[in-house]
């Protein structure tokens, strides 16, 4: 028994000091490189937005009783004629409509777009008040101008209604100019920066009058104004809006302390999901541009960020189209971020199919955009 105990104790005595150094770690040889590269995903933005959320009705944008969106441009008093404005003739007297223009104030916007679109049913309402007892005919000349391009209205002279004397001293009425009597759709679809107008008004007396005295005897007056109505009934083919902005992603000069720099991003994915109730599809392209060498360094393409909604026979949206698009920003893209001083955006629109679509104020788009970012965070 004693021998057994001694053996047992000896075994412990041998085991205890048998501990040995397995590895030596020299912390001076420890690499200081330390980084984290997690994939973080988060919802960025969302929205369930109708056209009326985006654009409130005002003097220029009007929603009609059917909620059809219409652009309205008005020009008051393009004609303001008194008898003294007419030539002193005995039968046919003529007055001149002073040349003027309607600036649509979209020149900057037009400078950024290319491609075709066509408005199907624009109209111009010539509203007037007329107290001339004689026949009045207006010869309105209008032309649309965009850069070097010009489109003429080609409107035939039209007559004004005259008051029913003696009970009616003045009449208010209007004359509609549209695709049936003019070249208006082509003019509006240019689309114009400015619409210039001019023309003349001819007054034909029913009886021979005294060219000297009658103007003074009859206090007649004719005032006319223009209202251009452009219902959003249109067709868009590769309408592209492009803009160049300063490179806002680029690291600043004082960013050395910032552990997260664009060039240290491994990747970024933007996942856009949408239920689009607009009969318009959209694509987006973004390029890093070096203006000193006029070279595009890297491009990110999202060909179908929004697909257009289906439409019925009248061009009205008849449902929604769901899309989910991933826009990928690669490590290569981020490597060029600091080599570009500008970013060029291209935004391309297309309408559903080949026909005319109508835009109503209750169209909606429901979207979410999530980001999955993989930064390379330097912890050194």
């Amino acid at each position, binding site marked *: 028994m004693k021998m057994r*105990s001694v053996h047992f104790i000896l075994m412990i005595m041998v*085991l205890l000091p048998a*501990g040995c150094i397995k590895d*030596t770690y020299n912390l001076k040889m*420890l690499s200081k490189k330390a980084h984290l590269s997690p994939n*973080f995903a988060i919802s960025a*933005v969302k929205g369930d937005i109708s056209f009326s959320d985006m654009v409130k009705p005002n003097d220029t944008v009007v929603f009609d009783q059917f909620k059809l969106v219409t652009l309205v441009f008005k020009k008051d008093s393009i004609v303001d004629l008194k008898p003294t404005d007419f030539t002193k003739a005995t039968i046919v007297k003529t007055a001149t409509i002073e040349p003027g223009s309607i600036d649509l104030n979209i020149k900057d916007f037009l400078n950024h777009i290319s491609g075709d679109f066509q408005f199907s049913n624009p109209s111009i309402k010539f509203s007037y008040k007329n107290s001339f007892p004689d026949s009045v005919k207006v010869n309105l000349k209008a032309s649309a101008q965009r850069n070097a391009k010009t489109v003429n209205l080609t409107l035939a002279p039209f007559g004004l209604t005259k008051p029913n004397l003696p009970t009616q001293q003045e009449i208010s009425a209007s004359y509609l100019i549209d695709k049936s009597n003019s070249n208006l759709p082509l003019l509006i679809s240019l689309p114009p920066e400015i619409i210039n107008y001019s023309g003349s008004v001819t007054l034909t007396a029913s009886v021979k009058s005294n060219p000297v005295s009658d103007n003074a005897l009859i206090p007649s007056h004719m005032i006319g104004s223009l209202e251009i109505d452009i219902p959003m009934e249109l067709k868009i083919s590769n309408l592209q809006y492009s803009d160049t902005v300063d490179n806002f992603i680029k690291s600043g000069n004082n960013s050395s302390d910032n552990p997260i720099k664009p060039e240290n991003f491994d990747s970024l994915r933007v996942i856009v*999901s949408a239920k689009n109730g607009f009969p318009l599809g959209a694509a987006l392209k973004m390029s890093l541009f070096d203006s000193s060498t006029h070279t595009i360094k890297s491009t990110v393409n999202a060909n179908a960020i929004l697909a257009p909604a289906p439409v019925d026979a009248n061009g009205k949206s008849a449902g929604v189209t769901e899309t989910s698009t991933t826009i990928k920003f690669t490590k290569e893209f981020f490597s060029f971020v600091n080599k570009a001083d500008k970013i060029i955006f291209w935004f391309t629109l297309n309408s559903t199919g080949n026909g005319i679509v109508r835009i109503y104020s209750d169209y909606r788009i429901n979207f979410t955009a999530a980001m999955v970012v993989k930064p390379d965070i330097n912890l050194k």
Partner: protein
Amino acid sequence: MKYILTVILVVVALNAAAQNSQVLYFMNLPQNHLINPALRPSNAVYIGLPVVSGFNLNINNNYVNFSDVIINGQPKDSLISFLHPDYNVDKFLAKIKDKNFLGPELTIPILGIGFSVGKDGYVFLDINTRIESNIVLPGDIFKLALKGNEQFVGSKIDLSSLRGDIKGYNEFGVGYSRNFSEKLRIGIKGKLLFGIACASIDNRSLGIAVNDDYSHTLYADMAVNISGPLTVNMDSKNNISSIDFDDNRFKTTSGIRDFIAGKKNMGLGLDIGATYDVTERIVVSAAITDLGFIRWKKDVTNLKASNHFEFSGLNMVDVVNGTKTIDEVGTDVLDSLKNAFVVSKSKAPFTTYLPFGISFAGSYSVTKNFSLGLLSYSRIISKQIREALTLSANLNLGNAFSTSMSYTAENHRYDNLGAGVAFRAGITQFYLLSDRIPVVWNRIKDGNSNVIIPANWNTFNLRLGMNLVFGNRIKEKSDKPMILVE
């Protein structure tokens, strides 16, 4: 980088858990009544004095070792950390469990007395100061930090197992054991507990659901209960503005004494155990220890937050219709998040329960002095059960010499070799025991300094100290001679 590593090393090493001294169970030491009050030493009397009675140090964590944090790189002499680009982070995460615990428990014996009463009775009195902590880090925290949240899309980041609990208390225990039959011995110890300080996270639910559309739902139902010389100050929006430590009470001896005495935070505890001699050679035993609670009433602060918050992106409707800027929308979201988890503060007393242990053991006496033992010890901490299974060979030569060798499977490690030795010189009994003897060590060099650390620190246990012992009870043989000579 060095600081990060240092923090990791310190956290893992110092926050290690004292669990139980498995190897102690079958040794002839007065301290073994701490893990089963039915066990008694062969000494008639023992006295454990402050300081010299020793201490109990245990290290347990269930996940990483030094060699998991730092490995050899290229060239061969170089070292890389788990944050280095060349380190395969998946390899590191493979070591991470769903629940990663750190549980420091320190027991400092102030006074221990045990003495025989009557034929087979034994009375013991213990005064200990105990510091216990239990920290559980959900595995998803590590996955989130190192690999991000995309991996959780369609599921949730489960943080419900997050626990944090630290408490210090004084334990006054009086116990008694005796034989109820020739074979059955039962022991019981009642304990009066006085809490010194406590901080406890009561986590009823915590997590983040990451939905398929990358929206997130954060939900939390948590409370932090504190009993200690702290004042938590809130601002007008019910956010924590500052925490003040009341150091005035430690400027006088009576203040320190009052704090350590913890008279206002009282609790009760109970140990109960039994041994049964199945045969002359086979003894089975069972015990439940540290069953108890402390009611914390002094310097109490309760902080509670409960709600859920869903973030599915900045809503652009207001931005599009021009009523708000995107900055304002972002600020609104942050405000909503803050308001969703408004912290309410109160001073309601709270109760903490002690982690308790359940042990089942059996021993087979090969000879009079040599036995083999099998011990199962389960530690129940909140909703977790930690299990250790120990095989041991034990040599007890009266109380002159006692030794034990053990093999323990615990903390997902199956290579824990332990040993204990106790010997008596006059009235003095020295003991040294460990559930895991670090056989393999690593040397950490940093400039001129060298530190030797165990290569594996999942389990490290060291109990050493000294008792004053008097007398030696010799168990009378119950068998009778086969031939009776008159």
